[in-house]
């Protein structure tokens, strides 16, 4: 890939960057962060906050790094006395009307105003005797509150709604120091992707009602994960406090979701904390399901599998590649029908300004992963087959009453489940498994990108990942091809070894941004596209 490269020296470090790169992006490559507010790599740049002013040799005035492109041989100083004075000046100007809300502001601890002021702001204000500009808090609805007093008018939110979401529902109203962010009366910020303005806001001006006063940023543990809302596979961060998931936020991945996630995915986390979990492995003994230990349960599972015969595997499209793959392998010695369930919605909700990003109709994260392993998609047929099967294994699915009735016709039913919600009188074995927040695993998204997610909270009760259940049965019972794996990474490698397009992949290859897999020789994906 040949490109015109330009050599530029920033704070003594010389980097070669493509022609047309801004100084602020070139600086990132040199490992230098130029402080900024209004600039954002996924938004058009207005250069209004004036924080990113840097000194360029032989240029009389400071230039904004976000809109100034590099020139061959340019020498830039981001931290010269002039640049620092300018930044300190901007920070002081921002603080004269900014209220001292830190003690009650959700943004504290993850606030860019705090961060930069701490780094190079003045120790004390020189604006001491005037009232600060006051505007009341506004409910932009459904989830977003606008605390006007804290607004630094970076206009990221306005630009996001206009240029990325494609609906200019926010504006800057008034002029001068009377300016504030306005929303049209009677309008709500209910665009399917509007929640991103809360992330974009560098301060605590646009805040989430869902997260309001729930936790302090520094109390949160942050874990890299992948959203389970649909097949887009937006990279996210799961924020937990005391082992409870309190917030999901998008994690930057330029190839998948850039810096955004939709509101459906964002708000869809409370189920991860549900307390009505299957606590222990349940074994049916003399007609009753009795809590037991894993050894007994795995023995029982082994005996059911050893019997062979016909088996039907009904799995959730939200199960990990590891779990789907290992359970599938476990049943390799049976006459197996495997199907994956992917709920389909009426329509998709694209984020207009980002190519290839949408809340997808397929509302499960790993339908394509299941398909790669060999799961079918004809759910009704599989359920029908289950009614006369020797063994049915349910992997984290909830059946309809009709489906449950059919399944109860099977000779033996093994449930690998998370929630207690469904009582199946036919269940021989009910094994508690972990959900996406409680395990390591991978999903394959609709673009056939394999992405890792990491464990964000401890698994409750005696639950274990479903891949572990399958992997742990085998060694003691020498079932099928070698199914032993004691870590998710090993399970992944094992599962991938039999899938041509995933062969030889390892967790190290995926990192935390995932990897595209070649689509050669495969049937069209679930969603009909390629």
């Amino acid at each position, binding site marked *: 890939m040949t490109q015109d490269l330009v050599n530029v020296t920033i704070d003594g470090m010389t980097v070669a960057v493509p022609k047309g790169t801004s100084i602020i992006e070139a600086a990132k490559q040199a490992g230098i962060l130029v402080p900024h507010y209004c600039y954002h790599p996924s938004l058009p740049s207005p250069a209004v906050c004036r924080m990113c002013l840097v000194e360029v040799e032989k240029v009389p005035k400071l230039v904004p790094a976000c809109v100034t492109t590099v020139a061959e041989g340019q020498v830039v100083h981001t931290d010269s006395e002039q640049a620092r004075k300018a930044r300190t000046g901007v920070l002081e100007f921002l603080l004269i009307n900014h209220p001292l809300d830190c003690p009650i502001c959700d943004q504290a601890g993850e606030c860019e105003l705090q961060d930069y002021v701490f780094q190079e702001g003045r120790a004390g204000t020189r604006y001491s005797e005037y009232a600060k500009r006051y505007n009341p808090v506004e*409910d932009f609805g459904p*989830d977003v509150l606008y605390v006007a007093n804290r607004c630094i008018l970076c206009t990221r939110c306005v630009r996001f709604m206009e240029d990325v979401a494609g*609906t*200019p*529902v926010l*504006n800057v109203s008034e*002029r001068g120091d009377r300016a504030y962010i306005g929303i*049209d009366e009677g309008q709500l910020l209910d665009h399917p992707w509007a929640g991103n303005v809360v992330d974009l806001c560098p301060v605590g001006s646009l805040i989430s*009602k869902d997260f309001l006063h729930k936790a302090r940023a520094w109390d949160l543990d942050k874990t890299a994960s992948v959203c389970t809302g649909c097949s887009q596979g937006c990279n996210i961060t799961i924020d937990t406090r005391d082992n409870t998931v309190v917030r999901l936020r998008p994690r930057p991945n330029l190839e998948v979701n850039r810096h955004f996630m939709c509101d459906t995915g964002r708000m869809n986390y409370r189920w991860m904390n549900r307390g009505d979990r299957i606590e222990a492995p349940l074994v049916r003994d003399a007609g009753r399901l009795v809590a037991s230990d894993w050894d007994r349960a795995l023995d029982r599972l082994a005996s059911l599998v050893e019997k062979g015969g016909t088996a039907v595997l009904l799995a959730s499209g939200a199960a990990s590649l590891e779990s789907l793959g290992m359970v599938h392998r476990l049943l390799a010695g049976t006459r197996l029908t495997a199907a994956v369930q992917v709920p389909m919605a009426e329509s998709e909700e694209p984020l207009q300004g980002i190519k290839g990003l949408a809340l997808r109709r397929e509302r499960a994260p790993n339908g394509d992963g299941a398909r790669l392993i060999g799961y079918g998609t004809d759910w009704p047929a599989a359920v029908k087959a289950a009614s006369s099967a020797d063994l049915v294994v349910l992997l984290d699915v909830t059946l309809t009453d009709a489906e449950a009735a059919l399944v109860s016709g099977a000779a033996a039913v093994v449930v690998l489940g998370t929630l207690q919600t469904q009582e199946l009188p036919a269940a021989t074995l009910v094994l508690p498994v972990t959900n996406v927040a409680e395990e390591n695993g991978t999903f394959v998204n609709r673009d056939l990108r394999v992405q890792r997610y990491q464990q964000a909270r401890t698994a409750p009760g005696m639950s274990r990942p479903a891949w572990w259940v399958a992997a742990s049965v085998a060694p003691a019972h020498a079932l099928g091809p070698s199914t032993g794996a004691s870590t998710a990474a090993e399970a992944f490698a094992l599962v991938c070894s039999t899938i041509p397009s995933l062969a030889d992949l390892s967790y190290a290859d995926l990192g935390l941004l995932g990897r595209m897999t070649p689509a050669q020789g495969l049937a069209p994906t679930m969603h009909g596209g390629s």
Partner: protein
Amino acid sequence: MSGNPGAGPAQAAAHHEESYQPVFVGPVKARLEALFPQYPTRQACLLPALWMVQEERGWISPRAIGEVAEVLGLTPAFVKGVVTFYTMYHTHPVGRHFVQVCTTSPCNICGAEDVVKAFLQHTGCGELGATSKDGRFTVIEVECLGACGFATPVLIDDDFIEGVTPERVPGILQGYK
């Protein structure tokens, strides 16, 4: 994802304009449409359209903002951002006669503030921006009107009056019923 829909922003419309009559019908619509060929975009007709609304109605209401947005293919939020930027557009009703007195430095040093006081007194407005009880006048201070050599200039509705002194004020006001 709580929050009740309809619990809109703090500045709720003070008027429920149930009987809102569109501005852009008949001749006014024709005048606006005559502008379309003069600009490559509909959006560029925004300032002229807003002037037309203000000429017809005396001010630009939220419903009118919505109408302008629809006619020009813009969002109401966008139109509102523009309306609130330009100070000559009224976003609430004002007196029948709108008095704008320049008090920027060139006129300020020639007694403009006394002229303002005279207007406030003789209109009965009491304070800047308030409408007189009889609904006749609203008086405000404005920035440089571009007639500094003819201090103090005053704009009353569309009448640009030069050389106003406190003594002339009562006589000037007589002409505005």
